């Protein structure tokens, strides 16, 4: 199928504003009588609050209001479990917990005033290790729960005991990954405006999920959803990060705005952002694998412990994706996987690009290379003996029979492009000098969209205006990835019009259809379907109108090149603009609401089996590295990333997702770690929390593999997270080949590469 507008590298429709500095991000908004908020945060990772004295701060000139927990009608928020304090009530559970928020005429004044608030604490011992949290004799972090376990997911297939008896080789290995910061370049900002145009409060901000934010604000204020309006601004990156933390900030700003009757702007600086915002979960993972001498996998037993930090946040769902995908894309008769989340007094953890997959892929793909080494087999060969194909049965018992299982194809493309086979042989030879090269691969399968974790549906409005221009509105939010452009291309394709007729509106919860969250790499596949359905309804109305007017058969009509045509007749029947005039005259309503609900899936939590996702994407990345074995420095030379995406709606945006994901994955592999000690966070700005710079970027090759999916719009599936999840594992395998030493803990920093273990000012956390 050849398309006019989709499958083309169309320029971003939000690009002009962004290259001219005209794009308004939340920090760029100013309102009359605007007040500035500043949060007083905890001094300790765990403490009882004995007393808060606001007197001096309230008396400070310029201070308009101060709120604490008792000013918030319902102080507990949370998408899955409502346990997150908007402001600490009697106890602080982690170092980023807020205690009070000041609103003042200037940020300067608000900053001074928080220093005048007197808080009397009783410092309490804390738990900072999920293994300690799991012990029966540990104290309860949340006293209303029976233990410190947030969640336990299981997956069971066959009989692993029997499987390991049949195995000719068994390996047991432990891996770990650290806390990781999203490091979006724009720190969090919200502005709450009271009593604006019939809403009780309007929230503008750097909001990843406007509907989740609205739910939180309405529930905290104890008002109905239609009283709260949330409008997303241009968002300076999110990657899963601007969700619960933004909800919490929005509630604080809303309460202050209502208390003062003035707009309140709440800005995090970078230090506050890193202290307060949730992180990617650290995992401790125990893997046991059994195989035959020929390299056929027979059994796997996996146990993963996730540190949830102070609140549940997204832990129940993050660990669920892990339990589904923990084996990697390998056929196995016997699997037993358990994933757990535990509360600690660390910074809380939530959604971050990958969502429970980068951790387990680092483990299972490292393990495959370790097994290959034991079997004296090429890692590629071992993988090819065991990977999923069409009709394979996954660990959860799902038969992969409704889409093309493209694993072998992505592997072959990546292997060929990277010259893996020759380089692997070459680098296995003894290398002279300190600098050693290595090449490593990693592969994955990934369930698209939310899966069985939640209801999965999205809506869109396509509204043709009287002049033929089109407005699109969906509840999914542009996070920077190009969603507006992709959705506009779909409408242009369906209506046969040029992109410049289309305008895409920011999410406004009072107008846009609630569509679930912009997460789980689901925008194109879910939102794209909704947009397509809406556009098709508009198309249908147009064709019906023209068929009636010219007495033609509707099924022979089609829209293309700004006009309406009949099959087998090259003559245009009527132009798009003439058609609009007809519709205006005849009073035809050329707007429609599209609603797409994902195909049915199911999960049996007890049995640990099910069809968790309705379709999957497949990826393979190959990393080539040079390791300075005398200093521990790693130079990443090249990364080849082959991803099957169903169909690419915009190949240039798609490549941008691959490049960006790979570089974020590179950071995860070799440099990124939020250093915590006893609940305190050490690196709170970009001088110490390091993300890759342009000089750290290796040669990148993005390979797009297309096997259209029956469920995706034009066959399109996902790319946002798959691009990130493989890179660290591929690098770890390349480094292991180069050095002959396996590092099982991320990141592969200078110390681990040179010494084999990390160094820390206090203790060695490596498993």
């Amino acid at each position, binding site marked *: 199928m050849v398309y006019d507008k989709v499958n083309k590298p169309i320029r971003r429709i939000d690009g002009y504003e962004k290259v001219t500095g005209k794009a308004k991000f939340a920090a760029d908004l100013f309102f009359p009588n605007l007040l500035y908020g500043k949060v007083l945060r905890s001094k300790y990772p765990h403490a009882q609050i004995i007393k808060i004295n606001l007197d001096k701060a309230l008396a400070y000139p310029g201070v308009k209001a101060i709120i604490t927990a008792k000013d918030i009608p319902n102080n507990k928020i949370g998408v899955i479990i409502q346990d997150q304090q908007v402001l600490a009530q009697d106890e602080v559970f982690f170092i980023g917990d807020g205690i009070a928020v000041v609103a003042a005429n200037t940020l300067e004044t608000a900053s001074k005033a928080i220093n005048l608030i007197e808080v009397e604490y009783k410092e309490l011992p804390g738990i900072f290790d999920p293994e300690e949290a799991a012990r029966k004799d540990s104290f309860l972090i949340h006293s209303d729960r029976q233990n410190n376990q947030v969640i336990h997911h299981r997956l069971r297939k066959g009989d692993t005991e029997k499987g390991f008896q049949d195995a000719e080789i068994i390996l047991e290995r432990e891996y770990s990954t650290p806390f990781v910061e999203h490091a979006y370049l724009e720190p969090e900002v919200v502005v709450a405006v009271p009593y604006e145009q019939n809403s009780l409060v309007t929230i503008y901000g750097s909001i990843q999920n406007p509907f989740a934010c609205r739910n939180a604000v309405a529930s905290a204020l104890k008002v109905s959803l239609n009283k709260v309006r949330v409008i997303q601004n241009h968002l300076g990156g999110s990657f899963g990060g601007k969700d619960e933390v933004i909800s919490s900030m929005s509630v604080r700003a809303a309460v202050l705005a209502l208390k003062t009757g003035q707009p309140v702007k709440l800005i995090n600086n970078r230090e506050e952002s890193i202290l307060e915002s949730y992180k990617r979960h650290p995992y401790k993972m125990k893997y046991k694998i059994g195989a035959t001498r020929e390299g056929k996998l027979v059994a796997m037993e996996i146990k993963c412990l996730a540190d949830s930090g102070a609140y549940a946040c997204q832990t129940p769902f993050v660990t669920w994706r892990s339990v589904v995908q923990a084996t990697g894309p390998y056929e196995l008769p016997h699997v037993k996987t358990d994933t757990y989340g535990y509360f600690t007094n660390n910074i809380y953890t939530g959604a971050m690009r990958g969502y429970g997959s980068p951790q387990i892929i680092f483990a299972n793909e490292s393990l495959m290379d370790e097994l290959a080494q034991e079997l004296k087999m090429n890692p590629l060969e071992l993988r090819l003996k065991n990977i999923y194909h069409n009709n394979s049965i996954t660990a959860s018992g799902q038969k992969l029979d409704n889409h093309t299982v493209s694993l072998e194809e992505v592997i072959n493309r990546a292997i060929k492009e990277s010259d893996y086979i020759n380089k692997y042989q070459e680098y296995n030879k003894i290398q002279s000098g300190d600098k050693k090269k290595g090449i490593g691969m990693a592969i994955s399968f990934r369930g698209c969209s939310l899966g069985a974790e939640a209801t999965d549906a999205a809506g869109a409005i396509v509204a043709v205006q009287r002049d033929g221009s089109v407005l699109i509105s969906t509840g999914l939010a542009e996070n920077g990835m190009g969603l507006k452009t992709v959705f506009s291309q779909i409408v242009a394709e369906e209506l046969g019009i040029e992109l410049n007729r289309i305008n895409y509106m920011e999410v406004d919860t009072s107008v846009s259809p609630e569509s679930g969250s912009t997460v789980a790499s689901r925008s194109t596949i879910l939102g794209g379907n909704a947009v397509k359905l809406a556009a098709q309804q508009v198309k249908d109305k147009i064709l019906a109108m023209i068929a009636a007017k010219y007495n033609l058969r509707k099924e022979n009509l089609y829209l293309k090149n700004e006009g309406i045509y009949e099959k087998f007749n090259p003559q245009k029947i009527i132009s798009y603009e003439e058609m609009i005039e007809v519709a205006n005259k005849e009073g035809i309503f050329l707007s429609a609401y599209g609603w797409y609900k994902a195909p049915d899936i199911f999960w049996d939590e007890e049995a640990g089996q099910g069809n968790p996702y309705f379709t999957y994407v497949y990826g393979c990345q190959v990393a080539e590295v040079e390791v300075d074995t005398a200093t521990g420095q790693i130079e990443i030379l090249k990364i080849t990333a082959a991803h099957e995406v169903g169909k690419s709606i915009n190949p240039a945006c798609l490549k941008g997702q691959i490049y960006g994901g790979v570089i974020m994955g590179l950071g995860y592999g070799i440099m990124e770690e939020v250093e915590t000690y006893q609940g305190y966070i050490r690196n709170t700005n970009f001088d110490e929390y390091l993300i890759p710079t*342009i000089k750290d970027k290796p040669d990148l090759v993005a390979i797009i593999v297309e096997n259209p999916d029956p469920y995706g719009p034009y066959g399109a599936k996902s790319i946002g997270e798959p691009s990130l999840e493989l890179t660290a594992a591929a690098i770890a395998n390349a480094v292991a080949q180069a050095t002959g030493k396996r590092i099982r803990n991320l990141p592969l920093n200078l110390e681990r590469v040179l010494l084999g273990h990390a160094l820390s000012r206090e203790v060695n956390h490596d498993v």
Partner: protein
Amino acid sequence: MKKIKINLTINGKKITLKVNPQERLIDTLRDRLKLTGTKEGCSIGECGACTVILNGKAVASCLVFTAQIDGSKILTVEGLEVGGKLDPLQQAFLDHHAVQCGFCTPGMLMSAKALLLKNPHPTREEIKTALEGNLCRCTGYEQIIEAIESVTKD
């Protein structure tokens, strides 16, 4: 705390201001002049989002006190488009998909512009050096480099 009288030429316009001793150039641009295209990402000179061109050189506007730069010429992202015509770099960023969330984009453009003012035909390595102080979390830098190269190669 006495205010300091400062003359500046910003995007070709002359202005006179009285500034506080702690007022950074980024504060002057964003808060006082509402030139909000310049972004604040870290406030310690490590992210590059606040990059502007000061007397021909790329600087982090969070690392300059306005009181220090009396008589200076400043170019910000708002000054790149002239008479409704985009700077070739801006057009290249659009054409090559060098923009995702757009928060780092103004700083990237200003660092690239400063490079081209001095060196219209840089090598790939020189482009990377010019942009090494500008962090981007979305693009993986690849398409940004492609965009700049498209302007610098004849």
